[in-house]
């Protein structure tokens, strides 16, 4: 089966600034593909090129079987797109929005009714369909935006930070909808900067300064980029101790959060007990230490730190 998305050396420059720099990857049909990166890393620019909104300056991309540069109109018919702005007509009713977007893709008559009816049920919008969209809470608008983006049953749906500004409970139920879409065979390409959300993705690409610096499953990323154990430490006089901890044999990464810090260690070279002893010796006493598995946060921090140091 051909991949849903094929990207080869895709590049986009704005003047002297290279927003997307020689990016290549493939996304399989029915896959949930996460695209991670800080603000300005080139996530949105990539999505805009893949949706035919922006012309690439170099490289090529095929989406739903069509070249985004040469046949953008055919690409558009096969994809759905939802931006972080939930671009709906806030002054219209929910139903009017759904009707408009369905007809924009050419649906009419009985087919329009069926599709809207089906979507209203799946997204649980029955109770609000006659309400003015702008009067509804953010989580509801988010579901309406998703409904509008997939009404025409696209093969691929692009979600550009779809959960920005939505509370955690609604984020979780939104991800259920995304998994549901994927289980029906829709390819989902989603950008986010919530690392916990990214765990839901089958594979993840990480963008740093316009470059795709890593691409793997969440587990694979953690194995390669955040190996070892993560220890959360807390205690008095931690700050000066942390400074001398960096560069110690077996310490892979040190990052502070709040009053404590996470220390990632290579357990072969530095067992947790030795670290605890070392810290207590420097006055971090009483010491609290907790063992946890590396997360995508750790992967992301390691990758951005490496990029900042100028390594590759």
């Amino acid at each position, binding site marked *: 089966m051909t991949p849903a998305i094929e990207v080869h050396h895709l590049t986009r420059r704005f003047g002297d600034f290279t927003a997307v720099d020689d990016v290549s990857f493939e996304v399989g049909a029915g896959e949930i593909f996460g695209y991670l990166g800080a603000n300005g890393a080139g996530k949105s620019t990539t999505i805009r090129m893949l949706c035919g*909104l922006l012309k690439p300056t170099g490289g090529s991309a095929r989406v739903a079987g069509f070249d985004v540069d040469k046949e953008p109109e055919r690409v558009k018919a096969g994809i759905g797109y939802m931006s972080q702005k939930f671009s709906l007509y806030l002054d*219209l009713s929910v139903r009017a929005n759904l009707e408009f*977007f369905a007809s924009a893709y050419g649906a009419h*008559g009985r087919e329009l009714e069926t599709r809207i009816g089906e979507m209203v049920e799946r997204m649980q919008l029955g109770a609000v369909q006659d309400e003015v969209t702008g009067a509804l809470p953010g989580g509801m608008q988010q579901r309406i935006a998703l409904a509008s983006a997939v009404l025409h049953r696209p093969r691929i749906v692009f979600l550009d930070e779809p959960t920005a500004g939505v509370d955690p409970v609604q984020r979780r139920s939104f991800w259920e909808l995304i998994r549901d879409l994927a289980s029906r065979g829709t390819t989902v390409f989603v950008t986010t900067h919530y690392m916990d959300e990214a765990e839901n993705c089958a594979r993840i690409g990480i963008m740093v300064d316009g470059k795709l610096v890593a691409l793997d499953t969440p587990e694979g990323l953690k194995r390669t980029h955040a190996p070892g154990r993560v220890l959360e430490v807390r205690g008095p006089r931690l700050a000066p101790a942390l400074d001398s901890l960096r560069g110690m044999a077996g310490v892979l990464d040190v990052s502070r959060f709040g009053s404590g810090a996470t220390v990632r260690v290579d357990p072969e070279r530095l067992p947790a007990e030795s670290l605890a002893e070392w810290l207590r010796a420097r006055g971090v006493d009483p010491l609290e230490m907790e063992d946890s598995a590396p997360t995508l946060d750790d992967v992301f921090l390691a990758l951005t730190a490496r990029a900042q140091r100028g390594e590759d």
Partner: protein
Amino acid sequence: MHPLVVQYRAVVVKEVRQTARDRRVMALITLAPLVQLFMLGFAVNFDVRHVPTVVVDRDKTAESRDYARSQLAGDTLDLKAEVSDELAAEEALERGEASVALIFPRDFQKDLLRGHGAQVQALVDGSDPTRSSVAANAVAQYAVLKAMQLARAQAQAQGETPPRSPVELVPRVLYNPELSTSVYVVPGIAAMLLLIVTTVIMAMGLSRERETGTLEQLQVTPLRPGILMAGKVTPFLLIGLVDVGLALSVGAWVFKVPLRGSLTLVAVATLFYLLSTLGVGLLIATVSRTQQQAFVGGFLFVLPAVLLSGVMSPIRAMPGWLAWLTYLNPVRYYVEVLRGVLLKEAGLPDLWRQVLALAVFGALMMAVASRRFHKTSA
């Protein structure tokens, strides 16, 4: 149904729903033009009447009083006050209390009866050229009339046949016999209001979509720019037609503007005109990022378009290069069509150039707006 028709209908329905829900826009496109037409129709008045006049009568005789009374009898000049001397008269003009001063010197009656070349001096405030030239005309006309009357009376008194004037002017004013300003100005105001409302609404409507992000959402659908533009314009074409109908009704009832020619021709010209103004609105939106910019852009177009259209001041009075610019202005052609059809019962044979110009302008604006829209989206 063809997908293009489905898409077009979707945009039209959406625009109508949005417009109907927006009370401010509804007021802007229905009530505001009528109220403004009503007010401007009364306010814009070039008729010169009741010019305040002071009289300095140093003669104080039957003839001087009679002359002043007759001169002031019409409704062009009104007696404001009698003042004692020239100085007081000049002061009245300076303070703006009067615009004309009539000064009768001593011996006015004596000179008049002797046929000696009696003199009346008229001081006219020239700061408002239209007003002063009408006032000065009235003064001069009366002097000629009085001279003729005197000559005739003298001849009769001496038993001769009164001399006839070698040339007699018989003026007849066509189309607007009462020379009412409203009849001339109201069609122009209607064109102007239509221009302002449609250009600004269209420009702001599209840039609002850009601001809220729905435009981007539209750009990822297969909806083509041409269809989107056509769908956005359609409801406002109909609203504009209704507006013109309302404006003509108010014009006919309140300002006695005649409706002489073919209303179908007016409707066709209106459609082309609206295509131009709405097209300009869309074009402005393609170069604006925010609604505010679109609003300002709208006015940067509307203001010169009104001033260079012949609505407010005659194109003939403009310097050559400026008058040439008016050929690029759709408002000019539309006002010519309206005035021609309504006042002179002109038909397509007289006005086809203007109608053609409007059609070309309208098509061009829509095409350019669609093209620019396509470019900015890519």
